[in-house]
């Protein structure tokens, strides 16, 4: 080493004192940040003044003057900017929830298939995974949208069983109509679900304490499905469907889903599904072989081994990255803007162009997405601490 410290060169100076150095560097950092922020803020103020704009969220109460083609709550061009953003946020949540459900199913199926001992099956799952995760999501969204909008016109819709129609304006399918009494059925199902959760908690606690089993699966299935179905039949099937009927120019009845939503949903499902498949595969592989072998040695059947030994341990590995995949899906749904699905970012962008309040809109974006992300990491921390207790 050429640069051994020369004795006395710097002893006693402020540089050799770790605490003092720490304080100095932090003061420099904070000072730097303050200087940069001050520089930016003063620039912004001059720029805003020149453009004649004022900061403030008051514009959210102004009339928005633009249409949104898919609104889950009442909205028209006379509504306010605030309401428009809310409609956009609901659209984001809608496609995210739909995407999370289907991507989870696709991901778990493909992850398990990729581990199949059938060469053909594992290769096909592998082709799906590599083929979707190595292509930009934006490209996939545009691709599916191109295909969907290339479908026949409304008059020549492709029919599936005279109930579902595909055309270049999207998918039209029967709309469920809730008749009086259906609410009761739904309430029964929800109560059944809650009771089932309580029962399975109680059953697992009792099994740990006494070793006695309880057929909670069957009891719970009965609670969640059998009672509501019986009630449904007793009340005379209080549910009917409004089936779309092709007219000369358009359909009467039914519900329509836009090609934008379908393309986005489908692309998000396939793209995130491939990442979830990899997560699931890694999770199952992370469970030591000895666990399976020990379970067989104890006389458990393969199904039981999977359900009671492998999956609980694999889930521990799978759930944290899975939640971050869900978060990624939600964030990625903002790519909706390129195909014209009016999600939170897209509506925000329109509002920004209409009102000129760019700083406020970006602040709202940041606030909303950050709270989603913080909520997710809070869940992840909670889950990690919960499973940490289970560990030996």
């Amino acid at each position, binding site marked *: 080493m050429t640069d051994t410290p020369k004795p006395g060169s710097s002893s006693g100076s402020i540089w050799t004192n770790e605490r003092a150095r720490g304080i100095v560097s932090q003061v420099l950092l904070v000072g730097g940040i303050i200087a940069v922020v001050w520089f930016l803020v003063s620039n912004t103020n001059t720029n805003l003044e020149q453009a004649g704009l004022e900061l403030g969220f008051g514009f959210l109460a102004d009339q928005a003057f633009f249409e949104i083609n898919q609104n889950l709550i009442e909205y028209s061009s006379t509504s306010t900017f605030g309401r428009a953003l809310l409609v956009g946020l609901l659209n984001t949540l809608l496609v995210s929830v739909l995407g999370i459900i289907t991507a989870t199913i696709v991901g778990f199926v493909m992850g398990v298939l990729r581990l199949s001992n059938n060469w053909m099956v594992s290769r096909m799952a592998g082709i799906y995974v590599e083929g979707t995760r190595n292509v930009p999501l934006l490209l996939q969204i545009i691709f599916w949208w191109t295909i969907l909008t290339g479908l026949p016109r409304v008059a020549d819709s492709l029919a599936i069983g005279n109930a579902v129609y595909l055309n270049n304006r999207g998918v039209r399918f029967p709309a469920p109509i809730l008749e009086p009494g259906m609410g009761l059925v739904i309430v029964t199902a929800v109560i059944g679900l809650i009771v089932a959760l309580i029962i399975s908690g109680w059953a697992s606690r009792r099994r740990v304490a006494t070793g006695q089993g309880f057929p909670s699966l069957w009891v719970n299935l009965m609670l969640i499905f059998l009672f509501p179905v019986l009630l449904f039949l007793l009340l005379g099937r209080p549910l009917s469907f409004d089936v779309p009927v092709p007219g000369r120019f358009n359909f009467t009845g039914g519900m329509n889903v836009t090609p934008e939503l379908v393309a986005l949903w489908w692309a998000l499902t396939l793209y995130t599904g491939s990442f979830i498949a990899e997560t699931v595969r890694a999770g199952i592989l992370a469970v030591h072989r000895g666990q399976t072998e020990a379970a067989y040695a104890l006389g458990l059947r393969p199904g039981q081994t999977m359900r009671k030994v492998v999956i609980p341990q694999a889930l521990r590995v799978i759930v944290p990255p899975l939640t971050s995949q869900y978060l990624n899906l939600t964030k990625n749904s903002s790519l909706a803007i390129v195909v014209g699905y009016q999600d939170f970012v897209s509506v925000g962008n329109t509002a920004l162009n209409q009102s000129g309040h760019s700083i406020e809109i970006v602040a709202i974006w940041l606030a909303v997405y950050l709270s989603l992300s*913080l909520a997710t990491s809070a869940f992840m921390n909670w889950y990690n601490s919960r499973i940490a207790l289970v560990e030996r």
Partner: protein
Amino acid sequence: MTEGFHRPQTEMIPNRAAPASSVGIVGWVRTNLLSSWVNVGLTLIGFYLIWLIVPPLLMWAFFDATYIGTDRFACEDRVGACWVFLDQRFAQFLYGFYPSEQTWRVNIALIMLIPALAPLLFDKMPGGKYLRWFSLAYPFIATFLLIGGFGLEEIPTNKFGGFMLNITVGLAGIFLSLPVGILLALGRRSQLPFVRIFCIGFIEVFRGVPLITMMFTAAMLLPLFLPPQMSLDLVVRVIVVVTAFASAYMAEVIRGGLAAIDRGQYEAAQALGLSYWKSMLLIILPQALKYSIPGIVNTFIALFKDTTLVIVIGLFDILNIGRSMVANPDWLGLGIETYAIIALSFFTVCFSISRYSLSLERRLDTSR
């Protein structure tokens, strides 16, 4: 000597061959395709799917396709794909609006990328020591080649486009985000509270929001934040935002690498009397970075795919060039072909990088 049962065995019995049903192609098929009735069924379904998909796809893509012509009308009487645009628009897909007599500069920059990356990708390279210096100099050489100045004709960045724009933004992002990410990762583990809070805040904000909102920020807010006389080029703004975004992810990857290092290494560095920066640069970071390489590569793949997002602020990367070509009356209705080609370009790059990262992971794993 009687022929009988008591004759002692003096020679080894030669090894018998394994049963014909368990080796060779037959054995492979039996264990991998036909091991149970369920598997037989799955294999049959697999073959059916292949038969359903592959022949029509080949017919469409190659045998029924049209290759030569000047616009889509050359393909009107064909049922297969129309690859005419490849011949006509290839340069635009690669270089965007870069002046055609200057594209040799892009080509040279791309070719020089190979020796620049080689010492980073492979451990044992002849002359690797000198190549490493070249790798460090490469970003500056490439910038000079692409933008020009000092005798070369200057090309404004709004002429950048096509796949070259994706590669430029991706490489610039990864190159710049590595040092920033290292600093952020060290800052997040720092004892100094303000440094730590600042780094956590930076990382969480950029990881928490979609890149698209950051793109809009780059396009619409940055000009508001800067003095009016100081106007930053749009491509530069995009690179700044992409760098900030990627360095937040990079910081988390490197933090993982730092956490994987044994405490003893930190303590030994302290015991040797090394200062914080020296112990980091000489002892900790070389090991931590080695462990983080797979994560860094994955960040790069994600970043490279995300470069297509420049489309939302009106830059013409390969995807946007394709998209606007498809909207052109001369090429209307060629969406599937165009997007397939673009997808293939990205797939080739990303898939080979991810394979490389896998092999690297295995190599690092055995060295541990």
